[in-house]
């Protein structure tokens, strides 16, 4: 029996030791960020960058969806809500009713790229063709200049801001065909496309890499210039919302304006989004 007590005591002691160890260092301000999975990478990269400069600030980033972000800002449970769409009127009025005033910061612009497997000879489509593919009226690559292979449609899950943007910018109120495969994240779509020669999918520009081909849409390659100049048709701004404009000089203010600094823009570009200042170029 005694040995068991000893065993428990040792475990408890270890636990206390482990728990207290970081307790010495951790203190100071917290910034809570919640919301979209698309804006998540920007928030995460900026958070880690900011925390590496200011050791006393703890920034937590949840990637739970734009709707959740809106809820958190309405209920005052987060400092910054990442959203890949603008707030809905209902969300906005709910916030105002609770005495909160959401302020939008457009941190970056994101083009939605249609991606296919690199072995696919199709290099470009029109928006109509993309819509045709997703509504089910185009079912084979040969109908749009490819080989005789049935199209595998991949779409983001209905819970994502990317899906909603795709629905509003491309689908034009038509329903996505029910044979489409729903995938939980940008990374997962890319993975599906790079492993399936007949697949087509859509991801944020930041997720396009060499393993997939981004299609030209209406003859326009999605890249920094075409997206920021508005030529590329499937593009959208990405938001961070705060409750009121943050107090000047606070950590929150410094963090939320990071995207305006050269450093912030470098980060945004490095992880594949388009900094907002170039929009008018």
């Amino acid at each position: 029996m005694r040995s068991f007590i000893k065993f428990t005591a040792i475990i408890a002691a270890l636990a206390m030791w482990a728990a207290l160890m970081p307790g010495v260092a951790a203190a100071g301000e917290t910034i809570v960020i919640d919301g979209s999975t698309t804006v998540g990478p920007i928030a995460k990269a900026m958070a880690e960058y900011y925390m590496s400069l200011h050791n006393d600030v703890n920034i937590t980033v949840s990637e739970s969806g734009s709707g959740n972000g809106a809820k958190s800002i309405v209920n005052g449970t987060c400092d910054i809500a990442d959203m890949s769409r603008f707030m809905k009127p209902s969300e906005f009025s709910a916030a105002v009713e609770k005495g909160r005033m959401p302020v939008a910061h457009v941190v970056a612009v994101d083009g939605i790229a249609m991606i296919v497997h690199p072995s696919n000879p199709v290099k470009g489509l029109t928006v109509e063709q993309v819509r045709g593919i997703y509504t089910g009226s185009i079912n084979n690559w040969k109908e749009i200049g490819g080989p005789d292979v049935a199209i595998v449609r991949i779409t983001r899950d209905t819970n994502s801001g990317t899906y909603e943007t795709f629905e509003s910018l491309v689908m034009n109120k038509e329903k996505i065909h029910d044979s489409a495969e729903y995938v939980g994240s940008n990374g997962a779509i890319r993975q599906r496309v790079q492993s399936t020669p007949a697949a087509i999918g859509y991801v944020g520009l930041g997720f396009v890499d060499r393993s997939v081909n981004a299609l030209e849409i209406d003859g326009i390659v999605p890249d920094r210039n075409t997206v920021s100049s508005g030529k590329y048709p499937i593009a959208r701004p990405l938001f961070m919302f705060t409750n009121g404009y943050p107090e000047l000089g606070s950590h929150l203010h410094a963090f939320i304006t990071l995207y305006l600094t050269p450093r912030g823009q470098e980060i945004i570009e490095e992880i594949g989004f388009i900094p907002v200042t170039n929009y008018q170029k």
Partner: protein
Amino acid sequence: MAEHENIKQTANIGSRLLMGARERRLRLIGSRIGHTVLIAIASSSLVALLFIFYFIIRDAVPFFRAEGFREFFLSTGWYPSRENPEFGALAIFLGSALVTLGAVAFSVPVGVMASLCLSDILPFSIRQVVKPVIEMLAAIPSVVYGFFALIVFAPALQQKGGSILAAGAMIVLVPLAAIAVIVAGDLICNYIAKKNDRAVRAAVTAGLALSAVFILYRIYGVIDGLRIESGTNALNASVILGIMALPTIVSVSEDALNSAGRELREGSYALGATRAETLVKVVMPAAKSGIVAAVILGVMRAIGETMVVWMASGNAARIPSPWFNLLEPVRTLTATIAGDMGEADHVTGSARYHVLFAMAASLLAIAFISNLISEIMVRKSRKGA
């Protein structure tokens, strides 16, 4: 009587010496209070369950009130984010059912056989080795299973799906075919030649075996040629869920088999039955309700699992064609709740938010009812023992 009094007095003498009447009364009151507190704390799980029911149903009711039952249970149009949203969850219910069915089809035979083996066939020393294996299978977190399904199993299925399936089918079919050949050979021999003629037996069995090998070879060829479009599909989720449900099924049905009793087995052996006959014809019927309970618990494990199906099932909200096609992606209730919660309008509590609670309530109802059934079954099996 007097003597009895006397003994009691002697027995209590120690405590009598130590405390007076008042103290004893205090102690009595104390124990009453203690008992009440004890019951209060012990009911915490009851309270927790009631709260869970209340909070889930409270948020599910507005959905049914606004949208009615018809669309939710009978339509397959799942478009929660459109301007005129559609909340048909039929395909999602069927997706859950299909994945669970697949898991059960794999795990029940394996699990029941394994539990028979553990309770009756294996010697004690080997059992001591096998038990930890089962415990480890039960202990591995579901996200690890999900990670394996997504990162290792899905690409493998996509690249060499046919071969993997064919190998799996052979693993199941070869032993089955062997048994079938033996039984059929025996029956045929008994039919044609009443005498125990070894040559005839050998010839018949060999003939059957050859044709079985030929059929298996053809089946292998057909399955080997299959191509799987997408590695994240109902099959992937089913296999992994089946493995996850195994420990539950094995341990519960092993309990039931053990409690079927020694006498039953000894009686059967005494009548000259072999071990297999004893197990199949005597022990298993006796432990039937316990095994059914095990299966139900396994089903519940599969239905309620979130991470594996979220990562591995493909999440397409439609009924596969044909409906039992495990090679197509499906979407399940749990994955829908986990995935859609973030984007639902918490703020205004729109239908899109409440529909997820409606799904949770359905899950809760399924879990509760099947749990009740399994409970009744377990009690029955205990009584029967």
